[in-house]
């Protein structure tokens, strides 16, 4: 099995705060992976480093066999925050922006998903509810044709129906060889779509296949609480 993302001996600090010290972890290709961990453990930082939005202080990050950098940005889709849109933008502007910016963007698919997600083309993004903004960000992220998708807390503000719709869109939209890494606190909502979980703790990284955890008679949440339990 090939690895989609390889992190090797990465250190990351913000001013004096150490987020990662000698972090090494790999994410296999073709899997849907849940990225879990307590608040402020570094989940978003890790996703941003994989997306080459921020750089590690030292260490190596590879997307497949290519070192993370400008070139790998064409192979990784990072879900942006609703605040990142310009104030003047309507839904159709954001979709057009993505189409113009990313050659791999599937415009027809995005238009279809806007309809499926009940998003009007002419609606101003700043006027949308949190859940609607999240839906827009998810669909824009998923409509790029890339190898690795990174979603940071994608369903936090969604009601149960749209949680389900978003999960379906995620599954329908990506081929089997695509890798999706999703950070979340809502383990119960998402654990049935994860093939594997990667759990960041202060004592290191734990990785396990979800069905292996369940075969051991434990729920994924119980496993999470057990491996993070030493710190709380």
């Amino acid at each position: 099995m090939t690895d989609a993302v390889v992190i090797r001996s990465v250190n990351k600090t913000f001013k004096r705060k150490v987020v990662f010290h000698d972090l090494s972890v790999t994410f296999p290709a073709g899997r849907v992976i849940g990225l879990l961990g307590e608040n402020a453990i570094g989940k978003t930082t890790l996703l941003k480093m994989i997306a080459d939005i921020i750089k590690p202080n030292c260490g190596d990050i590879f997307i497949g066999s290519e070192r993370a950098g400008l070139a790998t940005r064409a192979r990784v889709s990072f879900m942006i925050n609703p605040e990142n849109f310009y104030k003047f933008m309507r839904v159709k502007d954001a979709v057009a922006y993505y189409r113009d910016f990313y050659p791999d963007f599937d415009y027809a698919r995005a238009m279809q998903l806007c309809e499926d997600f009940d998003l009007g083309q002419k609606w101003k993004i700043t006027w949308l509810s949190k859940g609607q903004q999240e839906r827009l960000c998810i669909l824009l992220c998923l409509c790029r044709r890339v190898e690795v998708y990174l979603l940071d807390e994608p369903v936090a503000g969604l009601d149960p129906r749209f949680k389900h719709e978003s999960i379906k869109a995620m599954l329908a939209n990506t081929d089997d060889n695509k890798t999706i890494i999703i950070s979340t606190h809502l383990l119960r909502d998402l654990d049935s779509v994860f093939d594997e979980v990667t759990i960041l703790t202060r004592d290191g990284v734990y990785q396990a296949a979800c069905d292996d955890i369940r075969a051991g008679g434990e729920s994924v949440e119980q496993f999470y609480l057990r491996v993070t339990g030493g710190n709380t």
Partner: protein
Amino acid sequence: MIFVENLPIYVQIANDIKDQIVAGKLADGDKLLSLREYSLLYAVTALTMQRALGLLEAEAVIDTKKGVGSFVKAGAAAQLKVRSVDELVNDFIARAGKMGLNSAQIMHRVAQGVAKIGGEAK
């Protein structure tokens, strides 16, 4: 479908498909949905679905023809019924044994139960 927490999801999906076969919703020789259709239906990844179908194949419940699809094996429903009755009986005997009943007592209680509520399907 709502999954229980501590049983592998691919096993739960395989059981669900078996239930459909036993209930006659899927008959002998029927073509199953595609991997992708099932994956959306159960809202799980293709990998999980592949393992579920793999399990059904290993248990000789379905036949997968490359490039064509998966089909319910002839006699699968009958065989599954026998198997699930076996499981029920084994489970029942094991539990009754744990409660301290010996074979003769178990037989006696079953006979009593059948006499009382009848064995025929209602």
